[in-house]
């Protein structure tokens, strides 16, 4: 037993040492594990966010994708403004082989100043734009140089495919893609859309690997603006205006074409023209959208409103006689003159010969309050509300003095914009009802949801239908031989219009100068006006009268627009050809007797339906069809479908049966909108 105890004691010593070693090793391992654990806590808990970001930066690539700016299109979908991605050229100066030589080579290829480019390279650290939104041929030249440190990135650039057409209305966009003028500025929020982000891994070979759904944070394309303008009418108006300004050696001009029944502006032309593709090359004067933002003294075109107001108030009748004082009439210490001395005239004759004295006397009969009230009712002194920047509202001061009452009666001493005048004449053409003029018919976002829609809006009845018809009838005499604007007369269509020749105020002399604003406004066809056309020529030099310098441009626009819309002529062909005037009842003209043209068409039966020119197609009737069927049918007819909403086709634009060019966009409104 004692031996056993002894033996046990003998074994105990190394066992203890073993235990100590085990403990020691355990402690070492524990300490190691503790250190690892502490480090893990530090990395995973305390430095988690920082390290996560570092990791993301290293292997995750997040790319911001710029939203495509929405298009601006005319009423039939012809694009006026479009965005396309183009190459921008940048450089990393530290990578460039030789800054001086590279700058020289690049400047030569891109038509830049080599010294300025070199300075930019020297100032920058790792990134500098060489040329943003470069032309494809410039990009090709730079690529051919094969320089190290030169990169290319895509940036959206705004293009205006119709060049100057409606340039002032559409506006301009800066290099950063922000609207600076016109509709581009006014609808910046709707057009700009929303940029998207896309993230993904990039592997060792530089290949991208998508790690999220592609539509998670996709960019939202900007909304499409559909205007009421018709690019063909706009083109005709701009062409006629440019010709009129050149013929008259004038400084500027404006033309407005308006649908009096709806208030839609079909053309808004200005001269000098502006090409929004190259705004840097334009003179400062060319940027003004004169027809919207310029308020000017309109002159005699206002006489029609005075006559309308006086007739409506029964202050005068159509046969009331006024003494036009043989061309000179004293009002206080001022004398009012007529260009051509006149005797006793009826209101109709006063409008026909544009007598200032006659208009002033009608104004007197109407009275100060009523005169101002009627001008206000016709929309003067109020902004038309087109949404364009810098819209003028004009000023109609209360005529306290007798001379003010007289001058305001023939459109001097007050101001109005071209759009206001056109809209007011629209009220006369629309049986006395003033429609709100508008330019943007629809704003539709990328999902097809209609964000904004303007429809024809009746503002107020200004005068009775009878009064309006009576004034329009009087205005028809203006374009006859004895009137002030025989040059506006059309053989096929009856025209009702009024000339205006206003003196311009010279701010330096604080009085009227010898400069003039000549204008003509007409409605055609007079029996059922489809369009009101206003032409204003600023500071004409050859002649100063509206009937001489503006009326021909009116005729040119109306002569092109009427057949374009297929408006049936007011007069039979024989009468039109011989220049004989047909009777003037204010009823739509009905063809009487066999029309030679109709007979010719009838003899070619079937030709009208099938004789469509090669580039034109007829829009199919899609009402009630499913979206899929409608799209298939449109594509088969070589038309471009544009769907709004879901479900079945509720309405379509252009209408079924209309003749349009191949590739025209047909907008289909489907029952029920997308949400």
């Amino acid at each position: 037993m004692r031996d056993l105890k002894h033996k046990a004691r003998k074994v105990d010593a190394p066992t203890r040492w073993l235990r100590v070693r085990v403990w020691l090793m355990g402690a070492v391992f524990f300490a190691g594990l503790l250190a690892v654990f502490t480090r893990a806590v530090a990395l995973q808990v305390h430095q988690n966010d920082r390290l996560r970001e570092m990791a993301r930066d290293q292997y995750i690539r997040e790319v911001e994708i710029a939203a495509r700016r929405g298009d601006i299109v005319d009423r039939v979908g012809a694009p006026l403004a479009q965005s396309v991605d183009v190459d921008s050229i940048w450089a990393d100066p530290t990578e460039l082989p030789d800054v001086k030589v590279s700058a020289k080579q690049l400047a030569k290829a891109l038509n830049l100043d080599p010294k300025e480019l070199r300075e930019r390279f020297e100032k920058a650290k790792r990134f500098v734009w060489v040329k943003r939104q470069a032309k494809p041929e410039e990009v090709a030249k730079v690529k051919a140089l094969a320089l190290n440190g030169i990169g290319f990135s895509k940036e959206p650039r705004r293009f205006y495919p119709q060049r100057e057409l409606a340039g002032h209305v559409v506006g301009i966009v800066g290099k950063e893609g922000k609207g600076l003028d016109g509709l581009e500025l006014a609808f910046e929020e709707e057009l700009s859309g929303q940029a998207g982000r896309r993230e993904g891994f990039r592997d060792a070979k530089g290949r991208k690997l998508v790690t999220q759904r592609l539509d998670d944070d996709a960019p939202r394309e900007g909304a499409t603006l559909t205007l009421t303008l018709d690019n063909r009418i706009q083109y005709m108006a701009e062409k006629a205006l440019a010709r009129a300004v050149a013929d008259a050696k004038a400084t500027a001009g404006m033309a407005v074409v308006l649908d009096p029944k709806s208030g839609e502006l079909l053309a808004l032309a200005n001269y000098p023209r502006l090409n929004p593709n190259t705004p840097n090359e334009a003179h400062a004067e060319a940027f003004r959208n004169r027809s919207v933002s310029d308020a000017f003294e309109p002159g005699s075109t206002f006489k029609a409103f005075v006559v309308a107001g006086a007739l409506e108030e029964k202050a005068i009748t159509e046969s009331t006689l006024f003494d036009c004082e043989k061309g000179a009439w004293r009002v206080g210490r001022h004398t009012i003159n007529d260009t051509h001395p006149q005797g006793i005239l009826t209101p109709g004759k006063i409008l026909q010969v544009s007598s200032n004295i006659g208009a002033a006397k009608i104004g007197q009969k109407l009275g100060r309050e009523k005169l101002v009230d009627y001008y206000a009712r016709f929309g003067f002194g109020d902004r038309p509300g087109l949404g364009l920047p810098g819209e003028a509202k004009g000023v109609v001061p209360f005529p306290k003095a007798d001379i003010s009452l007289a001058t305001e009666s023939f459109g001097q001493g007050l101001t109005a914009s071209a759009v206001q005048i056109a809209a007011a004449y629209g009220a006369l053409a629309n049986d006395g009802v003033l429609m709100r003029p508008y330019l943007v018919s629809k704003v539709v976002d990328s999902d097809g949801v209609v964000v904004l829609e303007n429809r024809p809006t009746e503002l107020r009845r200004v005068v009775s239908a009878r009064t309006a018809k009576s004034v329009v009838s009087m205005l028809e005499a203006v374009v006859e031989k004895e009137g002030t604007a025989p040059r506006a007369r059309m053989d096929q269509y009856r025209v009702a219009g009024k000339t205006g020749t206003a003196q311009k105020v010279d701010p330096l002399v604080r009085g009227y100068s010898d400069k003039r604003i000549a204008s003509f406004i007409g409605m055609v066809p007079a029996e059922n006006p489809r369009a009101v056309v206003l032409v204003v020529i600023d500071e004409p030099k050859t002649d100063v009268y509206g009937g001489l310098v503006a009326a021909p441009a009116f005729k040119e626009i109306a002569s092109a627009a009427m057949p374009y819309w297929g408006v049936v002529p007011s007069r039979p062909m024989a009468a039109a050809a011989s220049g004989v005037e047909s009777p003037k009842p204010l009823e739509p003209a009905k063809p009487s007797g066999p029309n030679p043209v109709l007979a010719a068409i009838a003899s070619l039966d079937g030709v009208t339906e099938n004789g469509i020119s090669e580039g034109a197609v007829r829009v199919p009737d899609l009402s009630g069809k499913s979206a899929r069927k409608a799209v298939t049918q449109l594509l088969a007819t070589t038309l471009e479908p544009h769907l709004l909403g879901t479900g079945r086709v509720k309405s379509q634009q252009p209408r079924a049966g209309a003749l349009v060019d191949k590739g025209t966009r047909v907008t289909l409104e489907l029952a029920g909108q997308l949400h």
Partner: protein
Amino acid sequence: MSAALLDARKSGFSLSVILLELLPAAILCGLFVTVGIVHVTSRVLVVRVGYDLSRLDNENRLLVREQEQLKLEVATLKAPGRLEKLAQEKLGLVAPAPNALWPVPTR
């Protein structure tokens, strides 16, 4: 045959009983291996689809860009001013005189 199995035989256990005892573990191992293979395969497929998606997305963007450029080109070519110029210069056409066009009512 290992000594342990021999010992087990000597003590009265047959080989089949032993294998039966090991079967659950083997199945479990097999299951783990299968799940592992499926998981890895699916990951590989996901990555491959990711690459395909990136490539197609890129291709789609290039095609959309090309389509936009073509639309712009069409719009530029169809601009009324250009068409009129071409009609006059290349085809010798002139704008019709005011009375030359006579619209007729649609029947």
